[in-house]
């Protein structure tokens, strides 16, 4: 039989995966209807548990990113639950398509969902924690959000793929992810604090942290593209 099907490009695969993931989200509205209130609650609950005004104001930036990271766990888990529930991931493997393209598609879809989430969380922080931001701070903040969520998207997809289909993935995933995303938590928190000017942090300091976030994203972007295929492919 002549090979009639032409090889498909990486970007085509990535975009197909990307569209598929976002379409499933658009249909189930899980992020907007459930993850978002959950993240909001985390912010409220921590604030309440800390129960101390000074501390709170100082850690406002941190709470945004803690909530983001806990949301990351559940979004990643759901994203891969969809793929493994009927062995669709197996089908992807057999189809012999470029798994690094699958990685890119899934990561970008994940990052977009996180960005949407963070926009709301930051808006909430303006209301709840009385933070202020200058124009230049806003530029910093936006860059920070983009770099951080990109990095989180990459690392979440990589580890999600690693644990997908293994027994006990519900619990393994947070365990593996938590230490890895700790740097993102710290860097994004510091950058956000700089943007908010909390504790007298200077905007310029923030850019250094954003640089770190960019490096993190780059490392996991490249590493993930290379490692995702072999990882999924037992």
């Amino acid at each position: 039989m002549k090979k009639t099907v032409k090889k498909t490009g990486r970007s085509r695969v990535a975009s197909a995966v990307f569209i598929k993931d976002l379409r499933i989200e658009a249909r189930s509205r899980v992020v907007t209807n459930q993850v978002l209130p959950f993240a909001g609650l985390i912010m409220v609950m921590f604030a309440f548990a800390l129960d101390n005004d000074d501390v709170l104001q100082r850690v406002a930036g941190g709470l945004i990113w803690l909530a983001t990271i806990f949301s990351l766990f559940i979004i990643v888990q759901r994203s891969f639950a969809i793929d493994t529930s009927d062995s669709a991931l197996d089908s992807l493997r057999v189809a012999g398509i470029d798994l690094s393209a699958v990685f890119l598609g899934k990561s970008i879809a994940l990052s977009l969902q996180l960005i949407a989430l963070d926009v709301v969380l930051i808006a909430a922080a303006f209301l709840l924690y009385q933070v202020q931001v200058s124009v230049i701070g806003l530029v910093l903040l936006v860059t920070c959000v983009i770099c951080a969520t990109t990095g989180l998207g990459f690392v979440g997809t990589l580890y999600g793929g690693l644990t997908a289909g293994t027994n006990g993935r519900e619990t393994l995933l947070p365990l593996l992810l938590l230490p890895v995303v700790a740097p993102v938590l710290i860097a994004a928190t510091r950058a956000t604090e700089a943007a908010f000017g909390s504790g007298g942090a200077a905007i310029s300091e923030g850019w250094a942290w954003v640089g770190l976030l960019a490096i993190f994203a780059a490392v996991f972007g490249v590493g993930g593209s290379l490692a995702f295929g072999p990882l999924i492919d037992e």
Partner: protein
Amino acid sequence: MTVEKVLEFSDVVIVYDNFPAVAGATFSVNAGEIVLLQGANGAGKTTLLRACAGLLPIARGSANVLGCDLRLDRLAVRSRVGLLGHANGLFQDLTVLENMLFWSRLVGATRNDVDQAMDAMGLSGRLSETQVAKLSAGQRRRCALASLIVRRAQLWLLDEPHAGLDAQGRDELDRTLRAARDAGATVIFASHEIERASALATRSLVVASGTVKPA
């Protein structure tokens, strides 16, 4: 034209953590054959089929599929085989059509291919807009078959493809497999419905306790 070997296994051993599900399988398949694997539950049919698709590591022996040595590189063979396992491999939240379009984009098939495959499997009309989660078991199986058809693989591997299909679906499946063979593909499938399967197959192999014998 000399007979071309599509698959050659010799003394292949495949283990799941220490248990050798396939324990020294030797057989070969020529281009254009439709080979039936029969055998008791737990004999190793699924394991063999998944190994042919490059999904399982070969512990011992030599395995060659479509000219690729599976011990050296299990990835090379992937884009040229199509596998239908016990599971369907569909996205439950997407509709039938969306699933089909997703797979067709991945393998570069046209919209026309998709429509034809869906027609063949009786999935046009109302069903095409239905989410896979809301299909009956047989309808899901049909959808999985349709997405296999658009792949136009050179080697089709099917694990109990008739199970769950109704009479009309079975006939359609047999027609499809024969047509694929006529177009130059090779088919290996496992089945427990011996009469029906033997009628379809050009040759039968018996899998027993992890080894393969001619029927």
